[in-house]
């Protein structure tokens, strides 16, 4: 069996204000795309930040491509990338300048060609010389996703990648992400509130609540397990504790 691309073991993060992640474990198989679902404060972003090495766990461990995070992060950071609407790119720089700076930071070979390729792929060619801050929300998201794919990451972490996008653009971005994953065999962890997105893209879903994993299964299994027809209904069942209530009633 292949070694997991990402392995999370009994991961805990406790802040002064409370417990954000309460001892979760999971592994991501290479080439898989896994959805991380949960309400606000469920611990999704903290989990992703610990996988990226941005936050040090209180206890437990994270391994990415076999390397321990955050201690050995420089062994692997050039093979990862991240996109989130909550992290901006420098607004006064043009799209081309931003992609150039990040391309150099990641040591992308043939950077000019790579920028041309991602720009064509994300329909940014006409925007390359415009200031990033002057783009629409949808255009900025496309730039951020282009930046996240610039270094051909083996591990891609996405925190609500289609938030603030109109349905058409969101669907288009999902298509690009799916194509990238299939083309490169990349492993993708996708935190989202958009159930249709998770249902369409993910071959497995981890549902978090109050820092714990409430469920972890492929979408179809979850639908069958909860007797629901959509993931949104499953999510609401978990968020409102209906399953536990039903089991207790029986």
């Amino acid at each position, binding site marked *: 069996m292949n070694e997991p691309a990402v392995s999370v073991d009994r991961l805990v993060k406790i802040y002064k204000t409370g417990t954000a992640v309460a001892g979760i474990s999971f592994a991501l198989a290479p080439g898989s795309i896994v959805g991380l679902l949960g309400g606000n404060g469920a611990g999704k972003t903290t989990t992703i*930040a610990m996988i990226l*090495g941005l936050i040090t766990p209180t206890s437990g461990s994270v391994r990415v491509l076999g390397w321990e995070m955050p201690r050995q992060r420089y062994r692997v950071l050039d093979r990862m990338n991240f996109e989130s609407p*909550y*992290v901006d790119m420098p607004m006064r720089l043009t799209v081309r*300048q931003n992609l150039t*700076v990040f391309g*150099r*930071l990641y*040591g992308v070979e043939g950077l000019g060609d790579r920028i041309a390729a991602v720009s064509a792929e994300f329909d940014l060619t006409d925007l390359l010389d415009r200031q990033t801050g002057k783009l629409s929300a949808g255009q900025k998201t496309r730039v951020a996703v282009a930046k996240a794919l610039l270094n051909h990451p083996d591990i891609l972490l996405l925190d609500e990648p289609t938030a603030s996008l109109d349905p058409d653009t969101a669907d288009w971005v999902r298509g690009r992400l799916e194509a990238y994953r299939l083309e490169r065999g990349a492993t993708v962890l996708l935190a989202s509130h958009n159930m249709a997105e998770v249902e369409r893209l993910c071959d497995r879903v981890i549902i978090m609540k109050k820092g714990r994993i409430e469920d972890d299964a492929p979408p179809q299994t979850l639908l069958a397990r909860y007797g629901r027809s959509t993931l949104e209904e499953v999510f609401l069942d978990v968020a409102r504790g209906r399953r536990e209530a039903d089991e207790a009633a029986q």
Partner: protein
Amino acid sequence: MPSLRRIGAMVLRYWYLLRSSWPRLLELIYWPAVQMLTWGFLQLYLAQNAGFFARAGGTFIGAVLLWDILFRGQLGFSISFLEEMWARNLANLMISPLRPIEFIAALMIMSIVRLVIGMVPVTLLALGFFAFNIYALGLVLAAFFVNLILTSWAIGIVVSAIVLRNGLGAESIAWTIMFLLLPLACVYYPVTTLPQVLQIVAWTLPPTYVFEGMRAMLIDRVFRVDLMIDALALNAVLLVAATAAFIALLRSARRNGALLQTGE
């Protein structure tokens, strides 16, 4: 191993930013020019009315120019860092292969770039208005410059670390911390002017040695090598301590989740 490519990428990022905004460029020159002209004309007035100042020609203008190297050097370092906080770009950098030491190196280079843009026109103004040629100091100026820029970087590193750990609520430190040195480092007067207790404090600060050295040079025409060596030794200690503080506060920021939430 630090990578010149990544350091270059960060310098490029700040250069793009600087050249995209003429107010940013103008600001680099504006305050040093106003300060130099004010003190220059004051010195001119005093020189016409007091014998000592007639002999000590250039000490005020020299002090202003050297003070600006110290102050603007730190500000240039800290502002480049603050740009990342203002742009909410820090998380993007911290998940990239950029090492902290490379980040610091890029900030050091940018502090020099900003200093050159701001100070060269002002030194030329000093030459035009007051016939004060700071470049005539030659290698002595280089010794002053090296010591002042090292102190400015050490303080810039500490300020950046504090902002990194505590968020933009601590931003005002970047603008004000250097003014604590203004009276203590004896920019405009000799150390002996201070009370005994403050003299001890003054001699723990590397810039004090530079400003004393400047007065020795301009008034007595003596280059005090001993002062420059002492300043260099203190700067080495200061830089090591500042880098250690930066690494410790960066670790603390990772523990507290501050790298994701870079607001107030």
